[in-house]
């Protein structure tokens, strides 16, 4: 290597005196607030009075922890073989979905838009949809296109069914080419609603397309639906468990390969995913296991009603007890026994929990995320003696709140827990500053309030932009529990080291 140069990037460059002076000099042109004003306001924002005002907000949403429907629809579409997500409406939305997922997964995310503009607003988007189907099939050669909508198309009331039919009549796509579609207005629900709607639509479309649902070939198979799960590691973990239990399964919606493809000198637009033919057979299965409840409400209803199938819907199986329940559920659906290897695995993870428990016991935590994830996290915390205190769920409904509160009541460690549905991370900030906790669990957006409260953030959930590869490791099952434990306990141990007086800077912990 050649000579080392002293190259400073943004992390250190602007600490130099010349830049500090520059910043100070600039203030006069900014008509900047005085240092005193800023300090006073910092203090004001920490008060109970401010918190009260903050919680009285009715119109302003500040730093919410939710996204909009079509984002979820894109994720659902990515779970199927050769499927191109197609979002009908303005094009900027698709640019946002693709970059949002790319920042989380560090993977390419193919999706197209029908690029509607002002004339589309006036005349409707039929021409855009038809030309979009023609262009995208020519360029990206998908096996299926899954159409969802932006709020623009929803407000002007475009009729997807008629438009797609017209595209077939015009020959833009073949008569038989599968195009399931779902209305995903961003002014209703959140990304988990969009996932649910698109998934329901894909399952209904493919299973009803060629046949009679009442005609069933009995099968021992079990369908698995993960919900809006952004951990590709969860998919492989789940498959491993099912294979250890010798279960014949079909994932309905498996986006793990699309969002975790190899670097080997080639790029394809599509990797893995549920085979379209497998969806057509899915109604024959013995039952369907859903690993999120709140993101699969419509899907569950559809499967019960149309496929006349048993469904078991649970919240994210985080922690020992939830994993125990997951295995029981699989056993219930399939009659398969739980093998020794999983029992041993359970024991090893419980052993790990025993090793770490003194550092976790009584730690107070604040958390945010989607409803199913939060239920999983609360359960895990309670079983190791962590006390959930502030639980903010921007896209949670009343059912979620009741369920979460009931769960908290099952344990003495849940007594302080308060569930805040429809609240955002600016509410969370007030909570953290008025009723402090020891650490936080959530996605990247929580880093701002965690920093203001001077507590560490354990990154779990979505999106995670500022840490790498978290989503590649499972957080469900016994192995996932071990990963979660390792993340949390090591964060706490790091904090102990960072804050330790010299004598307590222990070599062994």
């Amino acid at each position, binding site marked *: 290597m050649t000579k080392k140069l002293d190259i*400073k990037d943004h992390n250190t460059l602007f600490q130099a005196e010349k830049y500090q002076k520059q910043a100070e000099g600039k203030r006069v042109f900014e*008509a900047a607030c005085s240092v005193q004003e800023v300090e006073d306001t910092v203090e004001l924002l920490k008060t109970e009075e401010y918190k009260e005002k903050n919680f009285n907000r009715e119109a302003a949403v500040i730093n919410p922890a939710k996204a909009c429907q079509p984002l979820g629809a894109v994720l659902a579409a990515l779970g199927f073989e050769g499927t191109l997500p197609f979002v009908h409406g303005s094009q900027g939305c698709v640019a946002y979905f693709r970059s949002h997922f790319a920042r989380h997964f*560090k993977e*390419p995310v193919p999706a197209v838009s029908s690029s509607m*503009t002002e004339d589309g607003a006036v005349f409707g988007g039929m021409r855009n949809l038809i030309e979009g189907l023609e262009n995208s099939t020519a360029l*990206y050669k998908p096996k299926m296109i899954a159409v969802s909508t932006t709020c623009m198309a929803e407000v002007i009331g475009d009729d997807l069914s008629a438009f797609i039919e017209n595209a077939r009549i015009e020959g833009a796509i073949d008569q038989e080419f599968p195009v399931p579609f779902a209305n995903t*207005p961003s002014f209703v629900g959140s990304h988990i609603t969009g996932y649910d709607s698109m998934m329901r639509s894909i399952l209904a479309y493919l299973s009803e397309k060629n046949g009679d649902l009442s005609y069933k070939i009995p099968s021992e198979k079990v369908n698995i639906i993960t919900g809006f799960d952004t951990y590709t590691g969860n998919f492989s973990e789940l498959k491993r468990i099912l294979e250890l239990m010798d279960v014949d399964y079909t994932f309905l919606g498996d986006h793990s390969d699309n969002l975790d493809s190899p670097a080997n000198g080639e*790029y394809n637009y599509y990797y893995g995913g549920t085979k379209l033919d497998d969806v057509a057979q899915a109604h024959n299965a013995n039952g369907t296991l859903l690993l999120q409840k709140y993101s699969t409400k419509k899907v569950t209803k559809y499967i019960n009603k149309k496929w006349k199938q048993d469904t078991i819907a649970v919240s994210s199986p985080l922690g020992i007890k939830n994993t125990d329940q997951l295995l029981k559920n699989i056993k219930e659906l399939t009659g398969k026994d739980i093998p020794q290897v999983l029992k041993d695995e359970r024991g090893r993870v419980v052993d790990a929990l025993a090793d770490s428990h003194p550092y976790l016991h009584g730690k107070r935590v604040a958390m945010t995320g989607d409803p199913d994830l939060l239920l999983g996290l609360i359960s895990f915390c309670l079983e190791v003696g962590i006390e959930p205190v502030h639980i903010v769920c921007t896209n949670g409904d009343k059912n979620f709140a009741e369920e979460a509160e009931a769960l908290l009541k099952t344990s003495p460690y849940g007594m302080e827990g308060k569930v805040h549905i429809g609240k955002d991370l600016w509410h969370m900030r007030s909570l953290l500053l008025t009723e402090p906790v020891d650490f936080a669990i959530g996605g990247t957006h929580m880093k701002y309030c965690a920093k203001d409260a001077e507590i560490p953030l354990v990154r779990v959930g979505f999106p995670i932009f500022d840490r790498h590869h978290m989503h590649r490791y499972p957080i469900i099952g016994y192995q996932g529990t071990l990963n979660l434990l390792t993340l949390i306990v090591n964060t706490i141990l790091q904090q102990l080291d960072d804050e330790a007086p010299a004598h307590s800077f222990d070599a062994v912990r």
Partner: protein
Amino acid sequence: MSTKEITDRHKILEELLEVYPERTKKFKKKHFQVVEEENIESGKCSVKSNIKSRPGVMTIRGCAYAGSKGVVWGPIKDMIHISHGPVGCGQYSWGTRRNYANGTLGVNNFTAMQVTSDFQERDIVFGGDKKLEALCKEVKEMFPLAKGISIQSECPVGLIGDDIEAVGKRMTKELGIPVVPVRCEGFRGVSQSLGHHIANDTIRDHVMGTRELEEAGPYDVAIIGDYNIGGDAWASRILLEEIGLRVIAQWSGDGSINELGITHKSKLNLIHCYRSMNYMAKTMEKEYGIPWMEYNFFGPSKTIESLRAIAAHFDETIQANAERVIAAYKAEMDEVIEKYRPRLEGKKVMLIIGGLRARHTIGAYEDLGMEIVATGYEFAHKDDYEKTIVELKEGTVLYDDPGAFDVEFLSDKLDIDLMGAGVKEKYVYHKLGIPFRQMHSWDYSGPYHGFDGFKVFAQDMDIAINSPIWSLMDSPF
């Protein structure tokens, strides 16, 4: 470049277009060009631009909202920017652009925040004006040091007939701070570009000329169109100050509403991102007679050229200062080039960036001995292409609004060593084993502007191209 090589490049473009359905092919054809000697001499460019993207092609473009909230208004740090409409737009653009600002987040700096009216079905049905009004009041209470509010409209607002202008007017009066309505609904125009224009116009209508500069000086200048990505504007400002100029405003990276309001007192407006802010530079020229000039602070050659051109607008003192500053940095720059040029010499670069950097970064690459084989923009206009083509070498492929398919096809055929584009494109290149740098966000690095920024740029290009990880791509199995 030989005639055969140029013919080959034409063939590549023909082959690319073959895959398109007939009507789209006819359209797309006009957006590609192989640059020939005569184009470089005349500056004439046949590439069509600023036209609607075809549906379904996987365009890289965004929307007007992204151009206004994301680019122009968002970086103004002491204002609250309301993403008015459903939750998504503000969520996806929250804290991802890296327009750095000094200040305390949530107290007197509101850049990395997502404030939204989070439209629900009832707002679509009954209209969102009342909610917007309540929101403005709440925001003022929540953020007492906020010095203004901008209302960034999302698609539904323009479709349901809301009157955000009336709300803006009422709230400006009631709250005593400017409340600026911006009609940047995503369906307007064909890309981010119209959003820039709309945002510029609202600065003109609501802020321009509204504040006074206490004491005007002969060397007052404003930086226009630098968004301070990774600190770019700071690394630029330092040079302007070192040559004796006084920078009275930054538009809009680390900017404030006061700076927007005093810029009409500037003696010379210096414009970096022409595409997104030329409108206001021209407006201030017309209204206040302020001259403006473009400059380019990427790479030492262009930075030196620009510093001299800027100094030429002022007296001999400034000109002498410029020479002194250029000389002072020379050794450092030579050292950087001496280290990195041998490692990067002859490497072929392909770019697809927004509306400026596809031409402005060429000099920086060339300072390192690298060659641009293909370049183009998401949302540039005709004048940008004319400015670009004169910077290119014969045989370079130039394109407008290429889709994912186009970019991947060309990068394969042109056998490139480095791709520079955005996050949506990035990870494709990791699969392919082609070094990549994000040229919107500087891949979380930067600054890249000025002399201090060039060091980081050179180092980053070296990291990308010469990383040992690329040799692991070929599996032995």
